């Protein structure tokens, strides 16, 4: 038996395969397809202070080996999460990590504080990288000063594992990773979506109501992999890699580049059972290559 355990801050994941925010609901949408308790963790859809309707439709477009979404931060707010969703989560033997979003530093802090007291939630993912909102979101993730401010404020208010989710829409993503580390984050996750656009040439209109949205899927994998590599070279805290992962091979690549764990996003839409197939594939790889612990893969790229 291979050892699949990895640690992110104070959280021990039974394996490095987790699912990405906004791509796996609260996990409950997937219970028909797989045993979600076998996942290392589930990152929930973004949670904000107040309920949000998200963006108008159409909210998506298909692109070559990818998709653009502009869902925005549609969710019923942190109080609804606590009252109506949280109670269902303890039925599952995996970690739920709440993706925390907001328009202002105060909102981030408010949500984080409310989640802090939830016994079964061992950590949050601070989403400073959503490209689909006018205020907050990516604005925090692309300006070093704002990034530092919001991370610092949340770090003070939140006492469990804090993961900061980074935006790829920057000149130097490692600068933001270093800021997160300096401000006491336990981990960084990357990448969120790349700002993108799609047009219907025949109708001469944007395909997405908000004109631009976030690109995800295999198309972005080579960019995500490079960013994980860059960040892993720069920081000491564990890196969670994501962006286009759709096979065990992809996961191995991210881990070799320096990731301690990974998130599977868009690929779940095409095959809702893919995350566990990926897990099987990792075990197979480890056995073929004689790795006894998955931790040995992290940063094991030979150069």
């Amino acid at each position: 038996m291979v050892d699949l355990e990895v640690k992110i801050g104070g959280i021990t994941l039974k394996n490095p395969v987790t699912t990405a925010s906004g791509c796996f609901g609260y996990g409950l949408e997937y219970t028909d397809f797989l045993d979600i308790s076998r996942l290392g963790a589930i990152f929930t859809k973004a949670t904000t202070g107040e309920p949000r309707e998200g963006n108008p439709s159409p909210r998506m477009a298909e692109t070559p080996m990818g998709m653009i979404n502009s869902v925005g931060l549609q969710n019923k707010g942190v109080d609804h999460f606590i009252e109506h969703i949280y109670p269902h989560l303890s039925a599952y033997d995996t970690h739920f990590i709440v993706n925390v979003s907001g328009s202002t530093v105060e909102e981030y802090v408010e949500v984080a504080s409310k989640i802090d007291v939830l016994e079964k939630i061992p950590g949050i993912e601070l989403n400073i990288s959503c490209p689909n909102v006018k205020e907050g979101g990516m604005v925090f993730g692309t300006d070093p000063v704002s990034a530092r401010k919001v991370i610092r404020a949340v770090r003070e208010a939140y006492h469990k594992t804090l993961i900061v989710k980074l935006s790829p829409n920057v000149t130097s993503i490692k600068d933001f990773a270093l800021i997160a580390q300096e401000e006491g984050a336990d981990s960084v996750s990357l990448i969120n979506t790349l700002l993108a656009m799609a047009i219907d040439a025949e109708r001469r209109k944007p395909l997405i109501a908000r004109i631009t949205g976030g690109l995800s899927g295999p198309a972005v994998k080579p960019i995500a992999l490079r960013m994980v590599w860059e960040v892993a070279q720069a920081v000491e805290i564990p890196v969670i890699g994501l962006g286009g992962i759709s096979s065990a091979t992809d996961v191995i690549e991210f881990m070799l580049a320096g990731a301690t764990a990974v998130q599977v996003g868009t690929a779940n839409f095409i095959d809702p059972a893919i995350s566990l197939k990926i897990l099987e594939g990792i075990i197979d790889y480890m056995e073929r290559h004689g790795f006894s612990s998955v931790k040995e893969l992290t940063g094991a790229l030979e150069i």
Partner: protein
Amino acid sequence: MNQIIGKKRIEDLEVTGNKWLNEDYFVLTLRSEEILPDIRAGQFTQVKVEGSPETFLRRPISFYDVHPSSREIRLLIRKAGAGTKRLSALNKGEKVNMIYPLGRPFSLLEGNRFLLVGGGVGLAPLYLLGKELHRAGKEIVFLFGFRSAGQLFDLSQFKDLGELYLTTEDGSKGEKGLVTGHPVMEQGWDAIYTCGPEPMMKVIAAVAAEKGVPCEASLETLMGCGFGACLCCAVETVHGMQRACVEGPVFNTKELLW
């Protein structure tokens, strides 16, 4: 990769037939190795299109017909782009990966006399609905609109279930004009069900609202996942943004803000 856990399935079905009805429409017949789940009219399947570099996401297709005894389902598909084109080229014996059954079906509304209005490939779910209503002993009338006679195909299976009226935009078959102008619309109906181009459905919904007749419409929204996880299929309703793949694709038109 057959996984049959709970209600929604991911399953490889086998192509047992694939037939062109006219230049644009074809019927794909698929057989499951397992007993079919309960599939209701208005529900759909997310079809994976293999061998097409342009087709990254699955394609949502309504159920056109279901045969539990032979474990076969039929899909009525219009060749729209790369994905449906690839589906049209499938041969008998090939496998197609599907997630199904998905979405909220049409409801059995109160009453006895129902009008089913379809445009183009929107006929698909109305056939299965017709069968369900017929089985429930209801009187049903179909009103179908096509661009021209060239788009038509053999509709006799619909006629086995109820009366059928036709319109074509160019008058090459049936009444000339749009379904929305057909006199049968003016009769007293207990409910109207519709599926087709959105502008058509909006007019039908307006007529129904005006007459106080309940109306359900099946929307064709773009979908990321099809099973409630991505929130990409959001539709504006009186209850806020709802997912066309879970709270729909069938909506009571008085709930829609369109």
